[in-house]
């Protein structure tokens, strides 16, 4: 293994298809029009010296190191800004050029510390490399003034900014603008005074910097440097793997020193992220080796007992015997399992296999139950497949982007940056959200054309009104509908949607969105050429979540915005493997590939392959499991990678259900909230300690590769296999690739997927039907995946949620997440990311705050019909009057103490996004928070008692 640095071509690739041929240093080279001479040269192995150029950003032409001579041309043009042309004859090396380059380098070095041997970039410094390349042997200048005394900025927890080493090449400034789209950096001053400035000469942490790392990546010297490299030195080998945070699924190079991760560097060849990253994936990986990591299996008889560390054999046998005992006592259906979107595809697959074949029931569910299960239902019904329709790159061809109930710059930041790039190029933007997300007007050079600031819970009324405008103003794509859709269903929908009660004027009083604004937005989407919809949990986590997904599908079909680049319906998945965990059959009614358990052919196929008698009846969903536990009908749970005791709604009910079970088995890397109710703890492995695959929001199956030995000794799939064998259902996989081979053999949409192919291509987007297929970036190009190939329109009557504001609970609470923290926070809370967000807070509009005497930073009680919690207040006009908002990253916040058991009609996805609450100023934590603190402290004591001798 080696560090195997990725080649830097100096300037970005040209997308042109027209080719030209030129001659560089006597060698013929053919390149697309628009390619720089620098890149063309690099493509044939001729490296022209450079400093201000790098292939992730547009050329700038400032350093003058890359000058060349062109036959018949004047002077020495910069090769980074000079495009190729037919017949050019270019010289990259001669004495004149060498003299110029040496002179340039001499000037740079005259104001640069000569501390190469002790510099953190030693061995990975482009300035050092260029000094060598141009043959610099002396510096004749003796400057009277330099920048060598410039003060370091160490404010960012992950990287250092040392201006004494800055060559003012502007790569960091341009990366912040072009790649990230934050514009936090600038060059302040002129001439000798020029310097890189975060914001208005502020420290990085006080500026708008979002710590994505693009500037660090772009810096050619040690000016911007990861603190981990400063502490540990340069890495010596690199392994490509996939980020374990959000559903963008960024590809990273884990740059290692032995088994220690030195840094995570975004992979330039990553097909989802193209070399970009966010603060979580780039820097927040320290949780993997945090002191809280659990590395020993443990058991106990009751949650009042101290934990006892045991061997793997004892723990697994105990877990299996308890599950068997419960089945003998309460029946076959009294146990089940919950998988997670944080697990790999292979882990999820064998988990559901264990439950279906080993437990003998279909009581398997996944955390997608509480996020995107309505996406699975709605898109399967209308388009025939439970997935988004596009690849991420499709956004670069979109002319009108509609973002519904999503906050891409916080929740899916790398894709958010790509979307912002397209918006800066001129695409129009419609935001549908109760809250003012950054894209509305807080992102530089981006502003929404329409922000439809609807009341929480009225999505379906709004999407119906958009459909109404499309139909009644005859804005639909008749040819698409006629050719591609089920005509009878369209006729029914057309009649329904045209009814007056669906008009913008009729729905205005419900949604709060002015009819004229809505009509303008609908017209823009329907007539603005390529219209692309991106949506998040603001769509799905409602009592009509599935109806809203169907409504979105309806308007996309009606306007013909499907089946080609630049359009589509795109669910932004919250966690890294939401799509994959659903694909792998972790819902209680579906085998892998979304095939119903009662389908005779599928049922027979799996019975034969798995050599087991399988149930053809749906199993229990997560909320059903909790209800059944309260009835003493569901008494044993195997939960892998999911923290239901923090993330699920109406948490007091969840806790009561967990307490009522006789055996809760938790497999996780930390003693999470659920583990505090557990009887068996099986230590899990982080994404750095195992191999497998993740499937991101664009159906891209990407490699996860073990870069360090599992701290607890086993990869998660091995633990599940051990449990299965102890349960009496044999599994004998020796590598996760064998699991993928089995998945491919049983699932038509994965038939052509293999580890060899993933390694060869980097990643594969399913469907991938056979060996020759390289995957499917865009779905439904010729026909939909329904049996008759036609898209199905469905009726979407608006049904108000029962969770309405009242005199007692006059405000509506909605929830979301923030850039620096991730879901329940188990990972990011154990990193320096707390520097940005150390607590969940309640956002409240100034009017509502004033009515209640609440001031900024006051403690406020938030009470709903389910419970009460206390948070500090942030007063902001981001939320509209009558609406309050919070995040849910800290268990002590108890956001889910107040959310209710109301859920989506089709899938029971909880209605997290609408909870009627009252707010009042308080001066102490809620009763639940006091109880939680006491319970949590007791559990940590019980852990301490059990592990203190080890």
């Amino acid at each position: 293994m080696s560090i195997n640095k990725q080649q830097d071509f100096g300037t970005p690739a040209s997308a042109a298809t027209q080719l030209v041929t030129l001659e560089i240093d006597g060698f013929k080279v053919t390149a697309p029009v628009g390619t720089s001479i620098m890149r063309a040269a690099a493509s044939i192995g001729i490296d022209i010296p450079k400093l201000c150029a790098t292939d992730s950003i547009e050329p700038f032409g400032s350093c003058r190191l890359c000058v060349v001579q062109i036959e018949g041309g004047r002077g020495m043009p910069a090769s980074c800004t000079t495009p190729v042309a037919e017949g050019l004859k270019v010289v990259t090396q001669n004495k004149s050029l060498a003299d110029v380059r040496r002179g340039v380098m001499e000037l740079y070095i005259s104001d640069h510390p000569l501390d190469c041997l002790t510099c953190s970039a030693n061995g990975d410094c482009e300035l050092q490399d260029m000094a060598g390349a141009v043959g610099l042997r002396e510096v004749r200048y003796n400057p009277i003034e330099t920048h060598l005394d410039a003060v370091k900025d160490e404010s960012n927890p992950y990287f250092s900014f040392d201006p004494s080493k800055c060559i003012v090449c502007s790569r960091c400034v341009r990366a912040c603008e072009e790649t990230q789209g934050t514009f936090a950096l600038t060059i302040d001053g002129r001439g000798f005074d020029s310097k890189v400035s975060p914001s208005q000469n502020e420290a990085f942490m006080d500026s708008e910097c979002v710590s994505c790392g693009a500037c660090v990546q772009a810096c050619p010297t040690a000016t911007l440097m990861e603190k981990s490299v400063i502490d540990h030195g340069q890495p010596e080998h690199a392994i490509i793997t996939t980020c374990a945070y959000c559903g963008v699924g960024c590809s990273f190079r884990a740059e290692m020193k032995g088994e220690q991760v030195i840094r995570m560097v975004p992979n330039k060849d990553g097909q989802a992220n193209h070399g970009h990253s966010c603060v979580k994936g780039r820097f927040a990986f320290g949780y993997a080796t945090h002191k809280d990591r659990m590395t020993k299996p443990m058991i106990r008889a009751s949650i009042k007992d101290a934990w006892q560390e045991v061997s793997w054999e004892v723990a697994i046998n105990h877990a299996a015997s308890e599950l068997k005992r419960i089945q003998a006592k309460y029946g076959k259906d009294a146990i089940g399992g919950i998988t997670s979107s944080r697990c790999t595809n292979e882990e999820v697959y064998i988990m559901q296999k264990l439950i279906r074949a080993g437990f003998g029931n279909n009581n398997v569910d996944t955390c997608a139950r509480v996020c995107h299960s309505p996406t699975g239902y709605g898109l399967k019904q209308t388009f025939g497949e439970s997935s988004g329709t596009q690849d991420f790159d499709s956004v670069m061809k979109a002319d009108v982007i509609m973002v519904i109930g999503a906050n891409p710059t916080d929740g899916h930041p790398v894709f958010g940056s790509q979307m912002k790039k397209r918006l800066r190029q001129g695409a129009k933007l419609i935001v549908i959200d109760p809250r003012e997300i950054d894209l509305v007007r807080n992102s530089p050079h981006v502003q929404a054309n329409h922000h439809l600031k609807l009341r929480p819970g009225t999505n379906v009324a709004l999407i119906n009104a958009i459909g109404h405008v499309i139909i009644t103003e005859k804005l639909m794509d008749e040819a698409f509908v006629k050719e591609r859709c089920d005509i009878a269903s369209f006729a029914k929908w057309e009649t329904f949607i045209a009814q007056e009660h669906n008009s913008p004027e009729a729905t205005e009083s419900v949604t709060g969105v002015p009819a004229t604004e809505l009509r303008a937005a609908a017209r823009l989407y329907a007539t603005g050429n390529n219209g692309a919809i991106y949506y998040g949990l603001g769509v799905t986590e409602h009592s009509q979540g599935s109806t809203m997904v169907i409504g979105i599908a309806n308007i996309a079909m009606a306007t013909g915005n499907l089946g080609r680049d630049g359009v589509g319906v795109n669910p932004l998945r919250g966690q890294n493997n939401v799509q994959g965990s659903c694909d792998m059959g972790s819902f209680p009614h579906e085998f892998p590939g979304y095939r119903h358990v009662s389908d005779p052919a599928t049922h027979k196929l799996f019975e034969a392959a798995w050599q087991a008698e399988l149930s053809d009846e749906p199993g229990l969903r997560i909320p059903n499991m909790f209800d059944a536990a309260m009835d003493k009908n569901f008494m044993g749970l195997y939960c892998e990678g999911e923290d239901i005791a923090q993330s699920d709604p109406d948490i007091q009910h969840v806790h009561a259900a967990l307490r009522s079970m006789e055996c809760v088995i938790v497999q996780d890397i930390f003693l999470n909230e659920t583990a505090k109710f557990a009887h068996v703890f099986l230590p899990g492995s982080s994404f750095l300690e195992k191999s497998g695959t993740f499937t991101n929001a664009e159906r891209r199956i990407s490699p996860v590769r073990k870069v360090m030995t599992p701290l607890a000794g086993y990869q998660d799939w091995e633990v599940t296999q051990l449990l299965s064998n102890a349960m009496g259902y044999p599994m004998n996989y020796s590598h996760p690739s064998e699991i993928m081979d089995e998945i491919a053999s049983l699932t038509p949409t994965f038939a052509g997927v293999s580890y060899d192919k993933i390694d060869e291509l980097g990643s594969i987007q399913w469907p991938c039907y056979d060996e020759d297929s390289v995957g499917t970036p865009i779905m439904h190009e010729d026909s939909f995946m329904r049996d008759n190939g036609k898209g199905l329109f469905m009726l979407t009557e608006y049904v108000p949620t029962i969770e309405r504001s009242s005199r007692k609970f006059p405000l509506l609470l909605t929830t979301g997440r923030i850039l620096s923290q991730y879901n329940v926070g188990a990972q990011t809370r154990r990193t320096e990311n707390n520097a940005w967000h150390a607590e969940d807070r309640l956002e409240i509009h100034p009017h509502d705050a004033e009515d209640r005497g609440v001031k900024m930073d006051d403690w406020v009680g938030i009470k709903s019909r389910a419970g009460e919690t206390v948070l500090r207040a942030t007063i902001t006009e981001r939320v509209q009057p009558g609406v309050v908002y919070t995040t849910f990253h800290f268990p002590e916040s108890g956001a889910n103490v107040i959310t209710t058991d109301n859920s989506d009609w089709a899938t029971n996805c909880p209605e997290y996004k609408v909870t009627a609450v009252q707010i009042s100023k308080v001066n102490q934590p809620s009763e639940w928070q006091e109880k939680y603190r006491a319970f949590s402290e007791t559990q940590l004591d019980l852990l301490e008692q059990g592990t203190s001798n080890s």
Partner: protein
Amino acid sequence: MKIETLVKMANDIGNFFNAESNKDIAAEGVSKHILRSWHPKMRREIIAYCKEDGSALSELARTAINKLDQA
């Protein structure tokens, strides 16, 4: 499982399919949805409730559950 929970779930499903003007098709939709997504024990319990009382069920949900019973 609490019958109130099952009744609410069935009525919520009914509310979606109620948009269909042909009530036979609507009831078929509700019935099929329950058949394909509910654990058999939950189905048995809602059918038993529907037979014994059923008053808290919407008309469409009741029709659908009767269909389910006859299937």
